[in-house]
């Protein structure tokens, strides 16, 4: 998901640059042909200097815009990475949010309030113990609890979708409490609203 997003963003940036460079050729020929039409040498030189400085300013603006886009991209990427690493953990067979979970969710909520274009999928997961069927309901309850908390925090319900994976997508392998604890979680997928 992250890769796709990155690609989309870099593709958008690339397109912006290409679009700018496409505008360039029509400008230059006109400027170059002008001196030939006007025979006075000094007016030609002045026009050239003026054109040069215009060109420089334009390039500078372009550079600044690219830098701004790059910074924006980096900022968004950082936020998305932050959201995607903000896993919320649960106790065995429980869907209640722990204090630690609530702390993480307030950070998530802050980001979502700051970036109204972000829409998220909350995925609920369980550890490997128990049946596939019951764990589907447990994963769904966990995702739902997270959604409810964020909704109460002010994030619009239409920006959040919940999905249960039950025990099917463990983060950590192994049949020990350490792995189980890692897998009893809810995590986030982020998309950018168009």
């Amino acid at each position, binding site marked *: 998901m992250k890769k796709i997003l990155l690609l989309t963003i870099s593709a958008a940036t690339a397109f912006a640059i290409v679009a700018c460079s496409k505008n360039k050729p029509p400008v230059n020929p006109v400027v170059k042909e002008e001196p030939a039409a006007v025979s006075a040498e000094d007016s030609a030189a002045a026009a050239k200097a003026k054109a040069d400085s215009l060109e420089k300013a334009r390039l500078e603006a372009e550079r600044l815009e690219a830098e701004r886009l790059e910074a924006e991209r980096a900022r968004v990427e950082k936020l998305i990475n932050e959201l995607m690493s903000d896993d919320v953990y649960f106790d065995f*067979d429980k869907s209640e949010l722990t204090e630690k979970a609530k702390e993480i969710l307030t950070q998530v909520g802050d980001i979502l309030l700051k970036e109204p274009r972000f829409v998220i*999928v909350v995925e609920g997961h369980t550890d490997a*113990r*128990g*049946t*596939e*069927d*019951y764990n*589907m*309901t447990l994963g*769904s*309850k966990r995702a*739902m609890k997270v959604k409810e908390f964020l909704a109460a925090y002010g994030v619009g319900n239409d920006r959040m979708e919940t*999905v*249960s*994976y*039950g025990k*099917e997508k463990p983060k950590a392998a192994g049949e020990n409490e350490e792995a189980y604890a890692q897998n009893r979680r809810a995590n986030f997928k982020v998309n950018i609203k168009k």
Partner: protein
Amino acid sequence: MMLSKLKLFAFAVFVACSSSFALIDTISVDVGIAVSNTMPIGLVPFEQEADFEAISSKLDEVLKRDFELSGRFSVVESPTFKMVTFVRGGAKFYVTGKLQKAEGSKVKLSCYLYATQTKDLVLGEAYKVAQKDVRAALHDFVDKVVKQLWGEFGVASTELAWVSKVDGVKQIVVADYDGYNRRQLTHDTTISMMPAWTKDNNSIIYVSFRNGKAQLFERELYTSKERRLFPNKSQTFSPAVNPKTGEVLFAAIHGNTTTVYLGDPNSGANHKVMYGRASQVSPSWSPFGTEILYTSDRGGSPQIFVMGKDGSDARRVTFMGNYNERASWSPQGDRIVYTSMDGGKMNIYTCAIDGSDIVQLTSNAGNNEHPTWSPDGMLIAFSSDRSGSHQIYIMRKDGTNVTRITNSGDNTAPTWSWYSPERQKQISIQNEGW
């Protein structure tokens, strides 16, 4: 084991004495003890023309395995007919046969059931089949022997569907009930799970994550035609097919809870069976499709409940332990099998419909789960990680005679097919009659 037999017997007596128990749609009271009292049957190796060594060397093994898996027979082997061996082994009947060349690449398989004392022919069957179908023909003969000697249908020609990991991804596979003739049904890059047979045994209903969430699909076995079921619900799983009407019970995540729905897979129409704030999951039909077993966490932990098909008269079945799940009603209607978690380990139990007479079928052998009844109610297939990896096993309904039917990979969640006479015709067995 002695204790559980006693309990079973006590239950039978209890049922026989209590007339108020008639609220369940069907009860055929097994005397319980009969399960472990198998019928000895003699087996003499098949005569064969030399050409067929490749197949014929396995003929007796196939029969022996079928008889022993059936939960009805114990095999008394003898290289030739020996009255003394059979009589001493208690085998009142014995089976033998021969394999001959037929036209083309086909073979003629003749199977006989004789009475030991009189040497009377009790049953004879001849099959003209392709060599690859010899196994199916032998299964058919075993079922005819069961019918002859027990007056009941056997399960040797039934099938199992289960979940197998292929390159790390859970896929649905289908095989003969004994684990042979395995075919992979799904080839997705996303998880497939929870297979259930449609009433006609022609399709598998299962859960696919191809759209990023759990959703029910139905796939035809012979055409691979596929469609999504109940698309008006976004997340659906735990399918259970009504053996009489083909209606499907399933769990759907809707709003804040998971609830059991009842739907018609053809029209897509579906409705909530019972309203309530607690989660409901893992529905299962009674043999005649009038009542529903399900799991609810309304007491704080998953426990098994039963209710009418219309959602009426819900009552709790399990009270022991704090994790009882995935109940399945026996085809005879008298007991349920379910999975219970204790100390982090899953094990299989059966109990009466009122929750009494609990018998633990598996213990001290890893995790044991996903029990599914054979259509004759004699056997339970399940998955276990006792060997270090998840494999499919079959046991008798009293927990004895555990036999592994898969050997490698990761195999879980078996679901037994229904009886299906139409299906048997498709195996292209030309029964010549006798």
